[in-house]
């Protein structure tokens, strides 16, 4: 498990971006639930932690794709592929994340950059 941040430092309605590669974000919903998903939108390079959080859904700040925080599924295009979900635990007021071992669905530009192609 990777420590993310203190629960007290993550108010409801906010997100915390964990600087792993690729980055993962922890969302604290208005109902008090915690979810962790891949931070990078699968459509184009944008951080979902900067997105519009509503219920159990986050809307990408760039092109308004929506992802279900519980499943990672695309609720609204233009994204076509889901984000991964990651296990979240809280111990002694500290939020921990266990990273998924699945392969991430990164947007084409980011995949190309990681593969050493043109940015």
């Amino acid at each position, binding site marked *: 498990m990777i420590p993310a941040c203190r629960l007290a430092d993550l108010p409801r309605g906010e997100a915390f971006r964990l600087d792993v590669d690729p980055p993962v974000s922890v969302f604290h919903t208005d109902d008090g639930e915690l979810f962790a998903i891949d931070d990078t939108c699968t459509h184009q390079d944008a951080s979902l932690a*900067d*997105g519009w959080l509503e219920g159990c859904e986050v809307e990408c700040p*760039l092109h308004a794709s929506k992802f279900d925080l519980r499943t990672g599924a695309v609720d609204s295009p233009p994204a076509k592929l889901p984000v991964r979900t990651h296990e979240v635990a809280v111990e002694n007021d500290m939020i921990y994340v266990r990273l998924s071992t699945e392969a991430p669905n990164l947007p084409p530009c980011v995949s190309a950059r990681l593969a050493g192609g043109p940015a």
Partner: protein
Amino acid sequence: MVGASLAGLSAARSLRKQGFDGRLVVIGDELHRPYDRPPLSKEFLAGALGEAELALEAEGEDLAAQWLLGARATGLDHVARAVRLADGREVRADGFVIATGAVARTLPGSAGLAGVHTLRTLDDARALRDELARGGRLVVIGGGFIGAEVASTAYALGLDVTVVEAAPTPLAGPLGAAMGAVVSGLHADHGVRLLCGVGVKGLSGESRVDAVLLEDGRSLPADLVVVGVGAHPCVGWLEGSGIALDNGVKCGADGRTSLAGVVAVGDCANWYDPRAGHHRRVEHWTGARERPEAAVATLLAGGAVEPGVPRPPYFWSDQYGVRIQFAGHAAEADSVTVEAGTADDRDVLAVYRRDGRPVAVLGMNQPRLFMRARKQLAAAVS
């Protein structure tokens, strides 16, 4: 469905989502399945994104539609409930969604001159990308978003770039003069020449362009010219159909047109904005994605649904590695305040207000603050 780009696809999806299980025909004048246009001036033009990645349809997505691609609509016969195609075919239907988009404006006298490009379609972008790869001197006519994005991409590819803008400040329409100057300052930051307040008299060259001639007598040598001077709605094919046209297809606040059983969406549609009290034709990607839902509901309900208040229009642009985001209407503002960052550092969050109330917001490399401000704006106008 007349039009097979983002607005047409979104309308087709909305029809199925809202329970329409009848026959659905999508007519598109391009040969391509629906693709995403914004990357055409950016990642696709730079060679970082291929054609497969532009596809808007998900793998395995099946809308159970009949696609008539490469088929140009030439007329709408309201009485016979039919769309006429250029090849003589007729498509009959009970309801019609008009989503024919817009076409890039050209420069008079530039037809047939090699090296002169507009950028609207995938085919345009392929042709321009191939020519950009050869390098040389590029003159971009028009300092709007398309022109600025092409300049930024060409600069990154190593071309010598000059942007010519007829107005004193580029982007003054969408962003206001003050912020238009800040955003267009990105050109000079990167050594791209920006000439403002000077019109273009014409182009010189025999079979291929060799220079852009300005109205003040200057001549700018050019190996390649991109004309980015806006677009006009593709509605010529509707003339004589009886549908009301005024800067596109004139629509109500729910997408309805003057003809029963016909709605219009996307760049070709001039929707009534109940908040502003007048019609507005919005040429944004987001409008093409979001508005078809309301228009389709109108079509299926025969106009019996009450339209909701649309979110403030939103658009983005990527230039020289800076992400520019804007929501609302700059023209309504009587003041603009920089609330975070600085204009010099190109990381501003600026809020536009009228009588103290927010009417628009601009962000440059401020995605998180921009999202917050955009939410506040949506709450303020709803």
